[in-house]
């Protein structure tokens, strides 16, 4: 064999090897999932993840709920007590009221009340005395109040009961027996707040209207109310 033929054979072998290597590499690229498997095992380079996942422009706005502060400006409750009609007849008094606290001192209130001997006579039987007068009485009114003297009752080392003495007055309409009157009221009360959502109220109010002179009707009531 000559040296030329030997060189030709060597080149042919080299070409065959190069072609076989290229063919095997191209076959690797056709292998399904090879790239993904390789990427899963490989540690991502800084910034690679961001480039691999482009930002979706159709993102939905995340639901970021801003927590709201609960307000407690309204006071709703009921009351019971006695009413003395023109210093003569006494009866039980029941009512409901709703108030709106405009500021820490000022509030407005609406109320509805009616007289009844139910419960009142039973109490009088226990305590002694005469029965109540069976008088038809209904009233509703609007009032404005002002917290005059606040204070704190120290019950224990870590527990205090705030209270306030308030003044209240307003106007309304009263139906006494079969007569309707425009009524005016003026009074004062003591409100105790054992919790920040509960109020206990003791109130003395003069409910007055004009009928053959001014009739003064005193109301003594005890009430419970919740703040909302």
């Amino acid at each position: 064999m000559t040296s030329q033929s030997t060189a030709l054979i060597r080149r042919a072998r080299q070409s065959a090897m190069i072609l076989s290597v290229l063919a095997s590499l191209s076959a690797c690229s056709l292998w399904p999932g090879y790239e993904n498997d390789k990427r899963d095992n490989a540690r991502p380079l800084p910034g690679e993840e961001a480039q691999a996942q482009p930002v979706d422009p159709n993102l939905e706005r995340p639901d970021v709920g801003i927590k709201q502060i609960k307000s407690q400006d309204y006071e709703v409750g009921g009351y019971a007590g006695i009413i003395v009609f023109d210093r003569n007849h006494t009866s039980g008094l029941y009512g409901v009221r709703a108030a709106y606290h405009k500021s820490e001192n000022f509030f407005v209130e609406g109320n509805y009340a009616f007289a009844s001997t139910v419960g009142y006579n039973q109490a009088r039987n226990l305590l002694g005395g005469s029965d109540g007068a069976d008088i038809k009485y209904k009233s509703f009114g609007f009032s404005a109040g002002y917290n005059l003297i606040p204070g704190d009752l120290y019950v224990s080392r870590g527990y205090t009961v705030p209270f306030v003495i308030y003044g209240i007055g307003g106007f309304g309409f009263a139906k006494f027996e079969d007569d309707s009157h425009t009524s005016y009221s003026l009074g004062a009360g003591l409100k105790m707040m054992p919790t920040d959502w509960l109020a206990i109220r003791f109130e003395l109010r003069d409910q007055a209207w004009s009928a053959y002179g001014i009739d003064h009707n005193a109301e003594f009531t005890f009430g419970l109310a919740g703040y909302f």
Partner: protein
Amino acid sequence: MSYLRWWIWVCCGLLPLAAQAEDYPSVEILVPFVELHTAPDERYPIHDIAEHGQQVSVIKRRARWYKVRTSEGKQGWVSDEQLRSSLTAAGLASLPETSSDYHP
């Protein structure tokens, strides 16, 4: 009597819901300190303070006062004037200013 028993069971069932509902917004105190009053009025005693940087939970509002609870569990009422900057920074709606507000 059976109605009463039924209502008691209903109320007992609602108790866990009431406990879960206590998720109050939290704000950071941005003024040097705020005063914790025993009730929502400046005439009630100040029983504690919350200092600058402290996180407080705002439990409720009544008129122009906020009931807050500190991380140590102290509760009290803070005036709107003292808490306004913290509420604004937290993105919570504050009450409109009044002419009597004091701005140091």
